[in-house]
């Protein structure tokens, strides 16, 4: 059965609405948007992912929390589990920007890295 679905692209601040023509689960055509938007839609309809930013506890630093983020978009369905893992963690100062604080988080192959020096 042919259906049309609207997907709002979150790749950049423009926030374009893309029209997706589908036959069952397979994508026939994507209208509107740019190249990045089209690959976002492909990804979003098969394996939705999000960048995740949070904090982990840090000892001996200026603040009690170190901001961290996923180096690549993370599987959406596993975000809450990731939050649990991050809450259980603690690191020691000093930490450098980009330093891996949790490698291969939840076996996704995605590293969690520090957002700043601290």
């Amino acid at each position, binding site marked *: 059965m042919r259906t049309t679905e609207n997907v*709002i*692209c*979150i*790749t*950049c*601040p423009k*926030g374009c609405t893309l029209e997706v023509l589908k036959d069952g689960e397979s994508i026939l055509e994507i209208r509107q948007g740019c190249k990045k938007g089209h690959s976002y839609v492909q990804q979003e309809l098969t394996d939705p992912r*999000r*960048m*995740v*930013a*949070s*904090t982990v*506890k840090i000892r001996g630093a*200026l*603040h*009690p*929390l170190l*901001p961290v*983020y996923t180096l690549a978009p993370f599987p*959406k369905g596993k*975000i*809450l589990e990731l*939050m649990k893992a991050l809450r259980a963690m603690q690191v020691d100062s000093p930490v450098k*920007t*980009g330093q891996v604080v949790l490698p291969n988080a939840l076996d996704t192959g995605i590293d969690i890295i520090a*957002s*700043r*020096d601290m």
Partner: protein
Amino acid sequence: MKIKQKYDVVVIGSGPGGLAAAIAAKKTGCDDVLVIERDIELGGILLQCIHNGFGLEILKQDLPGPSYAQRFVSEALGLGVETLLDAMVLDVSPQRRIFATSRKGGLYDIEARSIVLAMGCRERTRSQIRLPGPRPAGVFTAGTAQRWVNVEGYMPGRRFVVLGSGDIGMIMARRLTLEGAKVERVVEIMPYLNGLMRNYVQCLLDYDIPLQLRHTVNRIIGNHRVEAVEIVAVNDRWEPISGTEEIVPCDTLLLSVGLIPENELSRKAGVLLDPLTGGPFVDDHFQTNVPGIFAAGNVVHVYDLVDWVTEAGYIAGRSAAAFAIELRRWENRHMPLVAGENVRYVVPHELDRESLTMGAVRIQLRVKQPIESPVVVELRNGEDVLVKKGEPYARPGEMITLTIPSKVYDLVQKASVLSVHVVQR
């Protein structure tokens, strides 16, 4: 670090606008650039904006706020920008004199050849949207909650209602949800979303947080702590429609109802403000109506993207540096003409070195003591005599004129001070 008495460029605020201005000022060739920051570290509000989405335009990278800030902090420090942290600027004069205070250093009195105002903006509060009802604990601006959750490690509540669909409000709705709180809904008085569409998708839709357009918080319920809020639909004139009231239990109300450029200091410096933007009137160099005072970033008008704040900071910093360099050149061109042996005073008091390119310069003086025999009038640089002239005698009542000819231009360039003497031949 020892704070100097005078700087080429002083930047007030170390957010993205201030850091970009300081970096640009250094790169334009200013030696002495100082950033004054009231927090204990550089970076501004970006440090609490731990979500990503920064830098897509100018860095072509999707960075979290702290990473975006880190780049500019590192660059500024690497270039030798000086910093005064944990210090509050109390006053700025139109003559570019700055008074600041800090717990460690006491009072600072700093002169600046040019100033870049980069104080950013403040959040609108409950009183600015005239929200009635009692005043229990649990009503916070979204940015305050953001600071607590992301930097200081406190949760401001467990069950939230967010008023206003600005980006910070939506981003905090997601953040609080991820930290285990329940966000009941986001309420927006306008018929449309106030923030970016992408934030509606990734912050609200992803976590099933309802958005109610054309609704507002009518009153706050609770005496010691927020217990609930009353939400009501509004008509086209934003008036509550009676009969649509709904009590929503919650312990915290977050306000994300707009930002206002922070211009308390600008006003003190005599900077004129545009009532529409809330920020200074500026030209394309981001110079305000006060010569030598520039402004950059959200202090001018509230931007959507930090990238544009950085760009504005670069322009303001370059312009402020150019102003300071021009002023320094002008200061350097002028050298004092001082009274030497048996001279009471000389006019003019200062000499513009470049004047000699236009022709000779005539100076006039009076002696202290009469000399009733032939004298020599000498213009000296230290011991070197640059110009001399004979007179039959010297009397205090009779002014002496000496002409500095163009041909001594090169000798004058070498001097930092010139003195005039009248001695017996």
